[in-house]
Each structure stands twice: as structure tokens, then as C-alpha cells.
């Protein structure tokens, strides 16, 4: 990872509508290489939709998204090529239930990156060890806890050597006692310099790990800045109210 100030992901005036429901109304976000950006906001604020636009799981209605030097919203862009470099972790893990942890991690390496089976296996074992599951490689998803499944999903994304990782409420579906293990893995990743865009409700994580916090509401970015700026000196009333509600919980 090269340190630098040029953005790796640049989102410009992003709009997205589902039918008549406009979910994103002109979002602008820049993510620099090596940066951890945490997106906060109440449910329905459009943060997950925004994240899913970055690898075109949702097709933007208008606006532009650049990933490195590619405008992924341009017609001729080979989105599969882009997705190879954009790892994504889902709220519901989405492991392939018919494959073991190891096979979950090797499949795309072999089919997409055309790695040999041996190489893919080596990489997979290294990544599974990295997320603390070296002893679970032959387990099927149904034999793993939610936290373990999510860590396999992270390893699966990491095995593709992504330039950026997207986390879509990665801990929201987990029982409270399992959240910690997943967050620890994410913290480790951040420390190792991975560029991460994280949609989460974990305020502690945002405060500790984020380089940049973005607060979204109503389909637009309401406020952004360092964790200190957003958490300790919020300017917008909506941000204050949201943080207040969170604290009350």
C-alpha cells in the first residue's frame, strides 16, 4: 500500500432511486489510500446503498464513482475486474453453505484470479489463520458460529488481495459476545494499513479506528471529519440528535 493523498475511491454527486424512492440525493465522499472511513447514520439514511454502489451491487441512477483511475459508472468498464480489487463483507456473511471454510476462500481465487489450487490453498490458509480460524478450515459454515462465519467471509475477501475493503454492517447480525472477535480482526486490518470503508453502528470502533467519519442522513452527507470533530464537536443538529440517541441506548 502506498501512502499518499490521492483518493482511491472518489464518489461524486451520487444519486440512487428505487422506483420513486430517492435513497441517495447527491453524495460526495473521498477515501484516501490507507484510510479507514466509517459511515454512520440512522437506518434508511442510504449508507448501505452508497456502499453497495461502490462495487455496483446497486447501479447508481446518476453521478460518478472513481475507483483508482477507473470511472466504474462508465458504460464500458469491466465491473468484474474492479470487483476483484474491492473486497466486500456483508451483514449476513453470505458464505457459500455447501463449501468448507477453506473452499469458500479458495473458490474465487481459482476461478477469478486463476491461481493454481495449491497457491489458492496456501493463501486461504494464511488468511484464515490471520482471522484466527486456522483450526477451522475444514468446517462447513453451518458448523461455525456467526462470528466465525463473518471472519471466514473477511478472509475470503482478503484472499483476493483487495485494494479496498467494504464492510456493510458486518457485526449487526451477530450476538453481542461474538461482535468483539470480528471487530478485533477489523482493527488489525486497519492497523496493517488496509483501506476500509465501514458502515457500522459500533461507535466505539468508529472512535478508536476511524481516520475519517462520515455522518449520513436522508441520502446526503450531513457532516464529516475526524472522529473528534464529529463525536465531540458536532456542528449539525441532526448529528447531535443521532449521537444523543445512541448515547441514550
Amino acid at each position, binding site marked *: 500500500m502506498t501512502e499518499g493523498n490521492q483518493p482511491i475511491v472518489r464518489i461524486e454527486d451520487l444519486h440512487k432511486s428505487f422506483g420513486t424512492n430517492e435513497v441517495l440525493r447527491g453524495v460526495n465522499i473521498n477515501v484516501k489510500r490507507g484510510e479507514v472511513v466509517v459511515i454512520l447514520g440512522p437506518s434508511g439514511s442510504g449508507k448501505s446503498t452508497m456502499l453497495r454502489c461502490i*462495487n455496483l*451491487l446497486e447501479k447508481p441512477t446518476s453521478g460518478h464513482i472513481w475507483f483508482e483511475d477507473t470511472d466504474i459508472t462508465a458504460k464500458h468498464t469491466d465491473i*468484474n*475486474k474492479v*470487483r*476483484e480489487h*474491492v*473486497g*466486500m463483507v*456483508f*451483514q*449476513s*456473511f*453470505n*458464505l*457459500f*453453505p*455447501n463449501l468448507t471454510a477453506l473452499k469458500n476462500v479458495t*473458490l*474465487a481465487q481459482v*476461478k*477469478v*484470479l486463476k491461481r493454481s489450487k495449491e497457491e489458492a490453498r496456501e493463501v486461504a490458509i494464511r488468511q484464515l489463520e490471520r482471522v484466527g480460524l486456522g483450526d477451522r478450515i475444514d468446517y462447513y*459454515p*453451518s458448523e*461455525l458460529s*456467526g462470528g466465525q*462465519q463473518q471472519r471466514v*467471509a473477511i478472509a*475470503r*475477501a482478503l484472499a*483476493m488481495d483487495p485494494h479496498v475493503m467494504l464492510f456493510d454492517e458486518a457485526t449487526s*447480525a451477530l450476538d453481542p459476545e461474538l461482535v468483539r472477535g470480528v471487530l478485533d480482526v477489523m482493527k488489525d486490518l486497519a492497523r496493517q494499513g488496509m483501506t476500509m470503508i465501514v458502515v457500522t453502528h459500533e461507535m466505539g470502533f468508529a472512535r478508536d479506528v476511524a481516520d475519517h467519519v462520515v455522518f449520513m442522513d436522508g441520502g446526503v452527507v450531513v457532516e464529516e471529519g475526524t472522529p473528534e470533530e464529529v463525536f465531540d464537536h458536532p456542528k449539525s443538529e441532526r448529528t447531535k440528535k443521532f449521537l444523543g440517541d445512541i448515547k441514550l441506548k
Partner: protein
Amino acid sequence: MALLIAAALACALIALPSSAQALEVTATTARSNSDNDNSIYGGMETRVTWEAQTASDESLSTLTLDYPDGSTIPANQVKVTGLSGLNRITLDYTVASVDADTVAISFNTPTQAGLLIRVEASKAVLPAEGGSLSVSGSATLANGAQVDIPNGPAMNVVGVSVAQQLSNKLSEQGWVQAWNQNRLLHMFFDPTIIVISIPAVFHGWLLALLMVVCSFPIAIVIGLLLCFLRISHVGILRFLGSLYVNIVRGTPLFLQIYIAFFGLPLLGINIDNYLLSVIVMSLNSGAYLCEIFRAGIESISKGQFEAARSLGMNAVQTMFFVIIPQAFRRVIPTMTSEFILLYKDTSLFAAVGVMEMVMFARSITATTGNMTPYIVAALFYLLVTLPLTKFINIFEKRLADPSHGHKRGGSTPSPARLTDEETTLLESAPKVDSEHVTATSSLPGTQA
């Protein structure tokens, strides 16, 4: 034939030097033992009559008759008479068995010269294989000379199968006769017809199984192709796919069979009956399998597509490496139901004269006027369908079992929309058949 001539020649050669006045065999006949015509069946009791003319200076002291190999000739049922012109001459003789198909007759007083000797063997059983059979033998003349008796005229004996023999045996049994006193038991469960039906229906069973085993893999390929058309993003392909599926599923297979079997010859296209059956079955079943596969694929959660696509897999890779392997497991029970239906549907081809199980059964019913062959056919169908139904039940239990299922990985927090789609889809997919409904309703996606 060549052997017979050679044997006859050999006999003649041997016979000639010893005596010029050989017995002349004038007749070898057997009484018909058929209920329907004048045929003589092997393996069943009949009466074999052998006649030979002795020369004017020949008088016999012994006569040995060698009936066709495999015959059973009870010695105590052998009756010998002499005929002189129209006069019947009583002879004084004893009969002994040499072996099962050979009897030795010794005349206590040598027969009068020039007599026509008639040997009637009652309760004789000729060999079951049948064929053109004749009786040979030898005689000792009163003067001590040995005379070989060449083969006389042959009898045409119709061969009888092992099953027919068994049936014949059964029909002589007291308990079978008592059983058949009951009209119901006789019409539907006649043991003598059961044993005849089994080999014929078994033959049809193998053919029906072969038909379905050949057509099902082709149907799977057709079904998959149709399924890809139906889930394609290209409108015209989707339209063509659903047009085909709706036409095939919206018309009876029976009608499709008629159109194929009577229509193609009118166009001058003549295809072997079995081949055409396989083609029709594949094309028909492909449409049903298409809907089964589509239901299976659409029961896989959206998250699976998204996960695969987010890893950089293209649509085809996602389909073949992620979705189909999972969908396939889920549709195995429904596919098995479809296999059962297709297997049963082979019976429809009886209507156009394809020799399958019902046709074989019907041919026996046509000659016996008895329903038993259909019952035997029913049992042969069950031989396949019951174990498969059992398999479906076991497999469904396994899919429903959380330790084998994929509850955690497979469920997304927002599958409500998909589930609705599945439900309507699954309702539209099956043929109107209870098996289908039970099988499809157990797709794991619909249980949530």
C-alpha cells in the same frame, strides 16, 4: 437338418446289410394339447402315437422306441395294438422304461407277421423347447435279427417357455383350482397367469426403465437450457423460453405423443418407436424440469449472488460454481418426483403401440381375458416408484435437518420479497400431482 440326413443315412447304411426288410414307420403323431388350436405343445401332456408296418415275413419279439430327447414317457401308459387290415389284434406284451424317453416293449409271443404295430403313449410329455421331433428305435425279430428303425415322419411341436410350463404345473394344483373358484382372485390374481405375466412384463419393465433412463439426462440438459432462457436478461430469450414451457406444460403428454407418432410419419419422417419415445419424453420433461430448476435457483438467497459477484465472478461463473451446486441439492427431491412421473408416463406410449410394460401386459390380457397381467404390471411400477418415494422422504428430512441445512449461511435478513416469488413460482411449477406438490413445498427456502 444336415445332421438329420446324416443320421438317417447312417441308419440306412447300418440297417441295409443286416436286413432288407426293415420296419416301415408310417406315422408319428401327437394329439393336440392346445385349448385354442390344433397345436402340439411341448412340456405338456399329450398322447404320442407311433405306427409301423411290419413286412410280411417280419414278426417282432422286442421293440425299443426312443422318443425325442427330453421327453417323459411313462411306461405304464404305453399301449400297443396290432392292426391287420381293419382288425384289431390284441397283443401280449410288457413295457419297461429304459430311461425317461425310451421304452422297451417285449412281446411275450412274437407278433404276427405283416401287422401294423401301433404304440400309443398317453400322458407323454414332449420336450418343452419344441421343434420338429421324431421317434427312432430298434426291434428284434423273432429270428433273432436286430433291426434299426429309422426316424419316422416328424411331429411339429410348439416350444413352451419355462413360465408356461410352471403355469401348466400350477393349473394342475388343487389349491390353485380352489383359489380360482373365487371370481375376484381368479380375475385379478390368478397364479397361473401371474407366472406367465412376470417374464413378459419384466421385459416391458426393462424397456420402460431404459426409455426413462435414456430420456431423463437429456431432459435435464433441455431443462437447464430452458431455465437459462427463462432467467436471461434478454427479453426475447425469456419469451421463447416461457413460450415453450407454457405450451408443453399446458397440453397433455398424451396429445403430444399422438402428434409426434402420427404427425411425423405424415411428413414422411419415420423414426424408430423407442427413439421417438425418448425424444418426446425428453422434450416434455425438459419443460417441467426447467420450472423445477428455476424454482431451485430462485430459492437461493440473493446474498449468494452478491457474494459471488463481489468476489469478481462473472454471471456464468456465479451460476455454475455457486448457485447451481446449491440449487441442485434442493431440487433433488422434486427432480426425483419428476423422474417418477416420467417413468409412469411411459405407459402412455402403449396407445401408439410402443412395446412397454402396459403393452406387454395387455397382450396377455388380450389372450386370457384376465386382469392379472395388469396387476403384475402395477407391481413392477411400484418396484421403482416406492423406493424412490422413500428416497425423497429421507432426502427431504436431511434437507430439513438443521445440522445438514444451511440456516445460518443461507438466510439473509430481507428475503421476504424472494419468498413470495418462490411461493407463487412453486405453485405454478408442478404438474397437477400430489407428489409434486409435497416435494416442491419442501424446498428449504419456503420453510422459513
